[in-house]
């Protein structure tokens, strides 16, 4: 098959994974699977999933379809003890699957993330539709243990698997007009029950400045604890920006757009007085309704005292220079 003048071959093993030869692959999923076949295959996959679960007598809420990933040790890792797999995968904010902390775990198990397409658009030279396999293929998957600080004043330590967003962005050759990067989550109310009412405006949207997106800390995550992302954590790929509040880490990304103007993110649209574009972790700038000075670390010592929140969540050295001259109180 010839795509963008490059020869490569593709073998698809739908439920096992995708094996590809070639380094830079740009392929439209429509060239692999027609719309009709896509739907049929999806039904088949769901059906076979149920059949397998039934045969094995598995509880419906078993960790659905997480696969082991091949990873290499990454940089910037924290030496803190990671939060348990159980807490990381059952205590989530993912309003597409409900507003309760355990709702995503309860409601996301049947979420279909294969096949998955990411649309690249806007101010770049290589726009198009890329399959999930295309997205991750050229990148080595790194293990990176990051602190994760939610705007609700709790935190975790998460052993992510992913690759620098900057490396991905370079492949799409953004032009000089590209000042911001805008991300979108899938909109599919049939699969995402939380989207059936407007708690937030759907689809969920997030944005970064180009400098933030290119910062080596910014991670395109595809896994946690060496396994592919569980659905409730934003499968198949999500953003991780460890110096920002968790809501900036958009989940289940289907679109990346390079823009001239600063995009408005979902929480900012919803409550502009409480959530801004930057959302940098900052113990000195409180949320209008609660303090951000301290945080509760989820995990091993559940009744432990709250701990001090660190400026930029402890990543000051890597990112403080991005905000030189910016009034962080006004640009919350």
């Amino acid at each position, binding site marked *: 098959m010839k795509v963008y003048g490059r020869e490569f071959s593709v073998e698809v093993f739908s439920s096992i994974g995708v094996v590809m030869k070639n380094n830079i692959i740009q392929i439209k999923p429509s060239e692999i699977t027609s719309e009709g076949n896509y739907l049929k295959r999806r039904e088949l996959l769901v059906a076979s999933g149920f059949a397998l679960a039934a045969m094995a007598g598995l509880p419906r809420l078993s960790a659905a379809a997480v696969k082991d990933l091949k990873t290499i040790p990454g940089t910037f890792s924290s030496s803190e003890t990671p939060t348990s797999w159980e807490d990381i995968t059952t*205590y989530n904010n993912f309003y597409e699957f409900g507003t309760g902390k*355990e709702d995503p775990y309860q409601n996301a198990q049947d979420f279909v993330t294969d096949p998955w397409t990411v649309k690249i658009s806007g101010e770049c030279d290589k726009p198009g539709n890329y399959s999930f396999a295309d997205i991750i293929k050229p990148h080595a998957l790194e293990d990176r243990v990051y602190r994760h600080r939610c705007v609700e004043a709790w935190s975790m330590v998460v052993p992510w698997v992913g690759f620098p967003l900057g490396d991905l962005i370079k492949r799409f050759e953004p032009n000089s007009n590209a000042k911001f990067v805008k991300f979108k989550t899938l909109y599919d109310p049939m699969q995402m029950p939380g989207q059936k009412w407007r708690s937030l405006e759907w689809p969920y949207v997030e944005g970064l400045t180009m400098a933030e997106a290119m910062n080596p800390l910014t991670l395109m995550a595809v896994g946690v604890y060496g396994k592919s992302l569980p659905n409730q954590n934003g499968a198949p790929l999500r953003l991780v920006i460890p110096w920002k509040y968790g809501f900036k880490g958009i989940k289940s990304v289907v679109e990346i757009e390079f823009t001239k103007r600063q995009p408005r993110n979902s929480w900012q649209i919803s409550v502009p007085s409480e959530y801004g574009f930057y959302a940098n972790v900052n113990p000195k700038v409180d949320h209008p*309704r609660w*303090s951000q000075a301290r945080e*509760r670390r*989820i995990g091993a010592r*559940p009744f432990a005292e709250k701990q001090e929140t660190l400026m930029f969540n402890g990543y000051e050295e890597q990112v403080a220079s991005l905000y030189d001259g910016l009034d962080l109180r006004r640009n919350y």
Partner: protein
Amino acid sequence: MFLVCLVPLVTVVLGVFNLPGFGLGANPVEELIHRMGLWGLRFLLITLAITPLRKLSGWNWTLRLRRMFGLFAFFYICLHFLVYAGLDQRFNVSRIIEDVLERPYITLGMTGLLLLIPLAITSTNAMMRRLGRRWQKLHRLVYVIAILGVWHFFWQVKLDIREPLIFVAILTVLLGFRVVVSWRKSRQRRLLTQGNRSNDHTANAR
């Protein structure tokens, strides 16, 4: 009934000891604060529902439960505060005072709790007798407390206000009942006095 009212406390205690099926989740301190606060509010609304229920159904025996429900509301709200002050803030008084002064929803909640204290103290038979008519006046504070409580809940929710809205709706009905009743009473009284006056008038004309 007393034992039934203790069930929320028992489930929470089982949760603290992490018995299967009663876990408090990944953030137990927050879960405890929320659960105790919710039960406090629920008991407050149950207490407020007694009078309308009694008047509509004629079940006068329910009145005997009112004080117990009210005291359970006070009990769970105290636990709600104690978990917050103890487990969350580690009894750091200056931090708690800062919270009360700077966070409007905590100001509301704290005001409600402080107002509940005199009501709990004067809930005994002896106090009722001693205060006489003033007792009822004092205990009308519960309307203000309920509004403060529901408002406190509404204000701390991040985005999904469906649950606090249910409380708002129930409270509106319960307080609305009282408004309607007192409005009817005053109208009756007015009609009565007017009726008397017109009777006098006809009497005079004759």
